């Protein structure tokens, strides 16, 4: 067994321990239904922020339309589970595949754009997806899709989240991931090294979209009704905040960012106006004191107490 696999095993054990504790508390009635839902949302948001981080943080392509892919996964899956009585896993896979296909088709032309232009194009894309859904009567239009079976459970989201993190972690540590990071660092130099920059940008975008689609499927099955207003530009922006707050190019950061933002907004749910002020203040303070985010470009294992989790680096900072 090589070191990489040993690491994965450590993370798996750590994940199982956390799962055991939280699940135990839930089953024991120690966590109420409000927090139970919010813990599920945290896991979904971790999938969203980690997959967005692959696009924005690791590959350096500024995408502002992530909620659009989530919407695609959401609607494709609810059609399958509600109208065709398929199991959740089929909805998740089909939702992820549909979002990935769309991501690939749209990535091919738009990823030739740089920086600000790409941000605007993806922002527009997210809005177009939402407005198209709003105008399809088959899925309930603006009023929303009703009668969705309540299939999402804590074990489902938790293990999907683990698979997502595991997949993205291994992707960014592979040669493909190196290529993506090289593109972020310097696209022209990456091209000069023989890296097919278009291919990798589209690949990162497609994988990110796929996981957003899966997250959308899980999200939809938490509720009886779902409507397009859950996938506005503000939602995409919210995921971006999680990524930036946690740290671009850090998976630990994505987990922390999704956790902090979701838990904070849940805790402040009774004071919605207050919530936006805290958000804004937190971001301003962060940009002043830690512009790279809580974990910019580093993982938890870079810190001493957690180094035992990672044997590949041999204690290197």
């Amino acid at each position, binding site marked *: 067994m090589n070191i990489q696999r040993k690491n994965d095993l450590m993370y798996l054990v750590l994940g199982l321990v956390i799962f055991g504790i939280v699940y135990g508390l839930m089953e024991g009635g120690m966590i109420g239904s409000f927090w139970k839902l919010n813990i599920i949302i945290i896991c979904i948001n971790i999938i969203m922020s980690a997959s967005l981080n692959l696009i924005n943080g690791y590959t350096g392509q500024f995408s502002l339309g992530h909620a659009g892919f989530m919407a695609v996964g959401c609607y494709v899956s609810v059609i399958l589970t509600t109208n065709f009585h398929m199991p959740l896993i089929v909805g998740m896979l089909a939702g992820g595949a549909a979002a990935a296909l769309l991501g690939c088709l749209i990535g091919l032309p738009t990823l030739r754009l740089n920086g600000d232009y790409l941000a605007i194009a993806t922002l527009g894309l997210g809005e177009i997806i939402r407005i198209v859904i709003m105008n399809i009567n088959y899925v309930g239009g603006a009023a929303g899709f009703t009668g969705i079976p309540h299939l999402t459970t804590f074990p489902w989201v938790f293990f999907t989240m683990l698979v997502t993190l595991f997949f993205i972690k291994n992707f960014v540590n592979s*040669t493909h991931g*190196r*290529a993506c*990071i*090289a593109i972020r*660092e*310097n696209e*022209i*130099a*990456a*091209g*000069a*090294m*023989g*890296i*097919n*920059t278009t291919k990798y940008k589209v690949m990162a975008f497609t994988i990110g979209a796929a996981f957003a689609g899966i997250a959308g499927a899980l999200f939809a099955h938490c509720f009886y009704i779902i409507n397009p207003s859950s996938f506005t530009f503000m939602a995409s922006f919210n995921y971006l905040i999680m990524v930036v707050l946690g740290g671009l190019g850090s998976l630990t950061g994505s987990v922390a960012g999704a956790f902090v933002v979701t838990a904070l907004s849940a805790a402040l749910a009774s004071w919605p106006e207050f919530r936006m002020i805290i958000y804004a203040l937190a971001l301003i303070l962060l940009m002043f004191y830690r512009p790279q985010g809580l974990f910019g*470009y580093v993982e938890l294992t870079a810190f001493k107490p957690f180094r035992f989790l990672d044997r590949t680096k041999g204690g*290197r900072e």
Partner: protein
Amino acid sequence: MAAMLDIKDINVYYGAIHAIKGISLTVNEGEIVTLIGANGAGKSTTLRTVSGLLTPKEGEIKFLGETISGLPAQDIVRAGISQVPEGRRIFANMTVMENLELGAYIRTDKEGIEKDYQMVFERFPRLAERKEQQAGTLSGGEQQMLAMGRALMSRPKLLLLDEPSMGLAPLLIREIFNIIVDINKAGTTVLLVEQNANMALSIANRAYVLETGRITLSGDAKELAASEDVRKAYLGG
């Protein structure tokens, strides 16, 4: 014998700007050929066209008998041409070692790659001492060495160098040029773009002089260095 690199009458545009106006040049295997000229003459544009970052509107570029103009950059690297771009363009937030690893991106022969790391570290001992240093914190000269080492990691048959002396102290320029000669002796053909015409002509076999998108003079490097026109225009008298 056919030339290794054969550029035939290419025209390159930036939008409406006609930057290269019908240039032809050849590089034979084993040579050092230099392309000199003033700022804005089109030297970098020529190199970028060879390496596939730009596509000529007219004309053709052949490498080892195959047409490469119009191919994407990554295919041209695979064909055996590696460029050290102007301004170095290293991966600043990565370590020296990670930069070199990316240089070998197209290769899969693990043992050969290991050997070539050693070759690069022997050629550039300063890099060997700084394997784990962030590339962005290297000095200008060290960054130039890293950019060259990284280009060598793809084992190019033809190395394109765009102003390797830019911004370096005279002593370091001498060191870099010695290394270029060594690389060439070890079997890599070199096409060198330079402002520093004196140095470039002293190590090159042949030279081309570029003026506003056209080649105005070409020939043996020693003869050009001695010619009155070149002395006046580029060698300071």
